[in-house]
């Protein structure tokens, strides 16, 4: 058993680390994906043109406007001669307009009616959402800084994500998701292709002609990929830190345990795919049939809360959803134990069921 496992591990590593394409998939592709996805999927928006409409001499209004500009997200719009707030938006001279009470912001606030209107160009919904969220944050900060000024509750919804990412720094939030995605992609594709390649080339016949138990072959073919998957996870976490400054606020062992549970799950799913594929093309297709829904329904790009009710069960069967939640929890939130344990148990359950299913499906038969 030990000798066979050792032989498998040495062989798989020799093959994986010699093949330039494999090296590309294992080490270069994740880096490129991290950089591209991390930046492209980022919903952070800067240089929002902001105009403010207030009575001359309204110091409080001018102060709040300055706070908007100094946040770094907004730049002052050049209104020209236009004075009509909605006209500014329509003409595209401004992306957002703050409209203060005519009687003066400070006076209105003192009377408890400090309503400020924010007009947002919602041509792009994502952009508008960001502007909303920024404005809400700046208001809160302003109210906290100046206790005398009671910030009016803006009439828009509360964004849950702000809890983990108070600066609304989007890469921070996106990167753990992208990491999960990359680890998922690499392990699923490599594992599902590796067993089918043996079947296709005929080397599988060498393996099954030796007196081995099913679990010896399966462990031999999967342990190397679990190790490679973990190395990959470490690589993307390091890249996240170096490229985007994503911190690890929780414990490293939590990251390790979460990654291990996830990698075991995906390697088992990859093996499962290889047991139903006749050749490498089928395995590749099978891999993508799993990967696309897994990525789309993981909460990486679209919030899970917004999924149609019918699709929700699929979300809760998606290992990537739990892994992404775990990564965000550990890296950004400091590894809150309750969330850590519940997500990890779900992932662990999946690892066990996927592995048992792969074991049950595996046959030493040929053709």
């Amino acid at each position, binding site marked *: 058993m030990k000798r066979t496992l050792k*032989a498998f591990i040495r062989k798989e590593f020799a093959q994986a680390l010699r093949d330039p394409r494999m090296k590309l998939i294992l080490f270069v592709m994740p880096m490129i994906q991290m950089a591209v996805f991390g930046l492209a999927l980022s919903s952070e928006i800067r240089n929002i043109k902001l105009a403010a409409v207030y009575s001359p001499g309204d110091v409080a209004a001018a102060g709040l406007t300055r706070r908007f500009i100094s946040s770094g997200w907004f730049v002052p719009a050049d209104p020209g001669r236009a004075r009509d707030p909605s006209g500014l938006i329509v003409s595209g001279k401004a992306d957002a307009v703050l409209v203060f009470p005519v009687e003066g912001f400070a006076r209105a606030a003192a009377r408890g009616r400090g309503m400020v209107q924010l007009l947002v160009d919602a041509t792009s919904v994502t952009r508008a959402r960001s502007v909303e969220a920024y404005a809400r944050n700046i208001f809160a900060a302003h109210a906290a800084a100046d206790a005398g000024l009671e910030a009016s509750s803006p009439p828009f919804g509360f964004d849950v994500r702000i809890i983990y990412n108070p600066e609304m720094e989007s890469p921070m939030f996106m990167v753990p998701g992208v990491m999960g995605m990359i680890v998922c992609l690499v392990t699923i594709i490599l594992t599902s292709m590796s067993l089918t390649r043996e079947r296709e080339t005929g080397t599988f*016949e060498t393996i099954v*002609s030796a*007196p081995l138990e099913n679990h010896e072959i399966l462990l031999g073919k999967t342990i190397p990929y679990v190790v490679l998957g973990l190395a990959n996870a470490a690589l993307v976490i390091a890249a996240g830190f170096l490229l985007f400054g994503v911190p690890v606020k929780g414990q490293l062992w939590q990251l390790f345990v979460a990654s291990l549970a996830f990698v075991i799950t995906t390697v088992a799913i990859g093996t499962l795919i290889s047991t139903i594929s006749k050749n490498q093309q089928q395995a590749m297709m099978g891999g993508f049939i799993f990967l696309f829904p897994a990525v789309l329904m993981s909460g990486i790009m679209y919030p899970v809360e917004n999924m149609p009710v019918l699709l929700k069960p699929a979300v809760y069967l998606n290992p990537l959803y739990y892994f992404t939640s775990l990564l965000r929890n550990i890296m950004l939130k400091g590894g809150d134990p309750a969330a850590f344990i519940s997500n990890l148990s779900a992932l662990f359950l999946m690892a066990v069921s996927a592995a048992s299913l792969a074991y049950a499906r595996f046959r*030493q038969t040929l053709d």
Partner: protein
Amino acid sequence: MKTGPALEVKGLSIKFGDFTAVDDVSFSVARGEIFGFLGANGAGKTTAIRTLCGLLVPSSGSALVGGLDFSDGGKSIKKIVGYMSQKFTLYNDLTVGENLDFAAGLRKMEPRYAAKRRRELFELIGFDRPLSTMVASLPGGVKQELALASAMLHDPEIVFLDEPTSGVSPGSRARFWALIHKITGLGKTVIVTTHYMDEAEQCGRIALMRAGRLIALGSPEELKRGAFPGPMTELDFKGAEAGEFISALKKAPGLLEFSPHGMRWHAAFRDQAALSAALAGLPVSASAGLIKPSLEDVFIRLIEGAER
């Protein structure tokens, strides 16, 4: 040296669902024999070999391989046989050393014993390149020899070779067959499948298979005598129009087989009298000469004849 036959097969059948790949086959193979399976693609040769290697379990009938049965699903059989599949069984992207190390690991061999076996086998096959040579860079014939060495690393009593020489040069084929003779010289039993008649001639005995059934069994000489008890002649019409003669000949009494071989024809008869009678009307320009039937003639008579 163990005693008893290497293979003892009785009424062996192997079914995949409704399809019967091997149908009620019986034979036995003595130790040290070169035993060949001959037959068209899909005749059941590979299935028979895979079963006897312990990769498949018989659907019915019995098979003893080196005296062992299938009561443990073929596990113990796998230990005493070596199997070289018709697909290339080495890893092209590994070195010679890595390939043999992996084969040794699969068999849970003690590293020092594996190294000793490796040296012995390298000497047997005449391999003198460095262990760090990539398998992909080796010529086809050397690859096959190395695959054989890998299949024999655990010192099996019985070696199964499924079309070991397909796709290699004629020179390499000859070298490989010299190797097979060397192996049986060491007391091993070799079971081999082939498409080449010249290779089949080198087998001690041949099992002819068609559609899963064993239709003839014996040494090449026995097969020839069995298929062609009477004389065989080779006819050469030297390009002359001979349609009339040929159609008459096809109806001649006592004709066993009549088939084209390139520009010539082979005609086999029940006895000398039938031959003399049939060839009485041979055109003057044509020539006829007695020949010994080849295995190819046997193959055509027994296998293609049965399909006609």
